[in-house]
């Protein structure tokens, strides 16, 4: 590593950089589960197929929600589908996710959620009590998030063509005048905040599936992030550069997306990232990095250095965000990469997820 770079090596590094910088091309012959995992395959599908097809300014920014102005009203629109298995898990259920997930996509765009639509795709044979329980969960979660469900649709498909139920929600929000957010607005010096301990939702789901025969107290963190977004915008105003909820693919995937979108480097301090001991323990046993595990109620925020302390204090005052922490900083170089100063004192690259987070055999 300490040897000088030769011309030939420089040339090869150049080839790699050129290949990396190229727009993603979607060439896979079939959809595999990796396309749904939130990592590189998902990104290739979105950037290589979807964005070019629906070219729009809002789509090109690839935020969680698209912005649209209607008669001088600044609105945000977003949609999300929910296919979680099992439909009920410690700490939540598919119905709660369907509301909070969409509410959070709006909140992360700086939009106060106003209304939702709900589509239900039901599998033939579904127990009506299960349906009733989820409808009640949706209603209760929507009330808690102060958002109305104003339209909906139902479809029933043959047994085996869906797994119990799939939900799809679309959310409309009003963009808050305090919001000055863009995924491309990260600046060197920005501080990175996370709203609490990470990895709980994904780990709760993995363990609830029962495949690992591990028992734990881990519960999903599903919750509305509007109160946290509200507090951050109030405390930091225009110094709040962007927010993301760290869902599929976890904090690592969000940071990679943003580093690329803004052309900056992100440097994390691993030891400062809050992780519950039970989540850390399960992740250790399974050989999975909590940074890649999904959350349903955690956001990552980028705040200019002068406002970072106030923003963190405001975040910690929000119920459910008591363990919010500053976990790193934005740097200039190497652009598009996420680096981690490990708790052990070394340094590594935290890359995009290549497929599903699979346990290693060795």
């Amino acid at each position, binding site marked *: *590593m300490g040897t000088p770079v030769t011309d030939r090596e420089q040339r090869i*590094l150049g080839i790699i950089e050129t290949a990396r910088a190229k727009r993603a091309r979607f060439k896979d*012959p079939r959809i595999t589960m990796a396309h749904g995992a939130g990592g590189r395959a998902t990104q290739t599908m979105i950037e290589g197929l979807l964005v070019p097809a629906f070219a729009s300014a809002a789509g090109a920014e690839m935020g969680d929600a698209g912005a649209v102005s209607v008669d001088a009203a600044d609105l945000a629109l977003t949609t999300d589908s929910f296919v979680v298995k099992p439909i009920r898990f410690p700490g939540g259920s598919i119905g709660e996710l369907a509301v909070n997930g969409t509410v959070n996509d709006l909140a992360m765009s700086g939009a106060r959620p106003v209304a939702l639509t709900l589509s239900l795709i039901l599998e033939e044979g579904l127990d009506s009590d299960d349906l009733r329980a989820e409808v009640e969960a949706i209603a209760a979660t929507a009330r808690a998030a102060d958002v109305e469900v104003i339209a909906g649709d139902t479809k029933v498909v043959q047994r085996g063509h869906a797994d119990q139920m799939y939900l799809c929600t679309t959310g409309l929000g009003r963009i808050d005048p305090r919001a000055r957010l863009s995924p491309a607005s990260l600046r060197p010096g920005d501080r990175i905040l996370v709203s609490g301990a990470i990895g709980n939702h994904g780990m709760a789901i993995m363990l609830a599936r029962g495949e690992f025969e591990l028992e734990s107290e881990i519960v999903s963190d599903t919750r509305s992030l509007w109160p946290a977004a509200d507090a951050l915008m109030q405390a930091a105003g225009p110094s709040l550069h962007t927010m993301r909820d760290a869902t599929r693919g976890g904090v690592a995937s969000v940071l990679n997306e943003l580093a690329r979108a803004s052309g900056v480097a992100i440097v994390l301090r691993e030891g400062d990232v809050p992780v519950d001991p039970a989540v850390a323990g399960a992740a250790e046993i399974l050989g999975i990095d909590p940074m890649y595990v999904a959350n349903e109620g955690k956001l990552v925020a980028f705040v200019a250095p002068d406002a970072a302390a106030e923003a963190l204090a405001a975040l910690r005052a929000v119920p459910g965000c008591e363990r919010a922490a500053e976990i790193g900083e934005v740097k200039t170089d190497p652009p598009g990469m996420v*680096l981690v100063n490990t*708790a052990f004192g070394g340094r590594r690259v935290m890359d995009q997820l290549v*497929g599903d987070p699979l346990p*290693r055999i060795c």
Partner: protein
Amino acid sequence: MRFVDEYRDAALGQALAGEILATVDPGRHYKLMEVCGGHTHSIYKYGIDDLLPDNVELIHGPGCPVCVIPMGRVDDGIAIAHQPGVIFTCFGDMLRVPGSQGTLLEAKAAGADVRMVYSPLDALRIAKQNPEREVVFFAIGFETTAPSTALTLKRAKAEGVANFSCVCNHVTIVPPLRALLESPDLRLDGFIGPGHVCTVVGARPLQFIPADYQRPVVVSGFEPLDILQSIQMILRQLADGRCELENQYKRVVPHEGNLRALEVLAEVFELRPHFEWRGLGFISQSALRLSDAYVDLDAEVRFSTPGVRVADPKACQCGEVLKGVIKPWECKVFGTACTPEHAIGTCMVSPEGACAAYYNYGRFAREREVV
């Protein structure tokens, strides 16, 4: 976390890094091979490279069990997976390993019933739950995972589970190491020994490395302090002019190994006369197959497979990279024909392979200071 955090203490790590710096001869370049993929993983995860002096280089060895599976074997697996009625089971990280016509993950998308399991016993359970289906377990791994496959096969035989069978790709660690060491252009100064394999086979089988090839070897644990300490032990040997087998991982690895596990292995498996390794070619007696007593459970006997050997592309120089003769970027196809998205050789297949690591992080590794 108790019994974990103790091995990840940053202050102790810094102290060891200081000792290492004091041990190395600044005028000498050291190339040490970590044999096992698990070590490579830890080295990345904790950023251990970063704590080493510039003149200590770690070379990633042939011990990543998924990376060394040749394309022809993957093709055979996919062919079995596509047969009607088959449920094909394997470990998760096998799903992404490319054969000549794609991966098992793609076979699954194309309609094959491919399922990820965490243990071969899970595959046996699936077989018992689906008596009308043929359930095949695609076994991979070194001596570390072979005992669990062996126990599963023993149980399947004892319980008479007729619809269960196994494609055995288990490999052994000593022959590829010997093949590397036999190479006249070898440029390695010492070895970090594969701790997990040694929990089964013991430290003793690695004695040939210092005895026959005059290279120090230290059997190492997988926590960051384990690895740093092992590196320090190797460098100390080199500084003292010693060349020995040492065991840093004594808390787990007995010198003679796990005798009960070895007994089960001997009963269920026998050595193949030869086996192909991606990047290394054919190596004699380097892999296991089911013994005659278990032939009924051998999927290679039960199913017909193409069994075609798919040659590594001629331009691929994984062997030289593994031996430390060339650096990844010196390979003829590196970064052009061979990339992480379209890997040709073993070193590019796994994200932890030497070439994939260089492809992804090489530029960064060059720049020690982040602006």
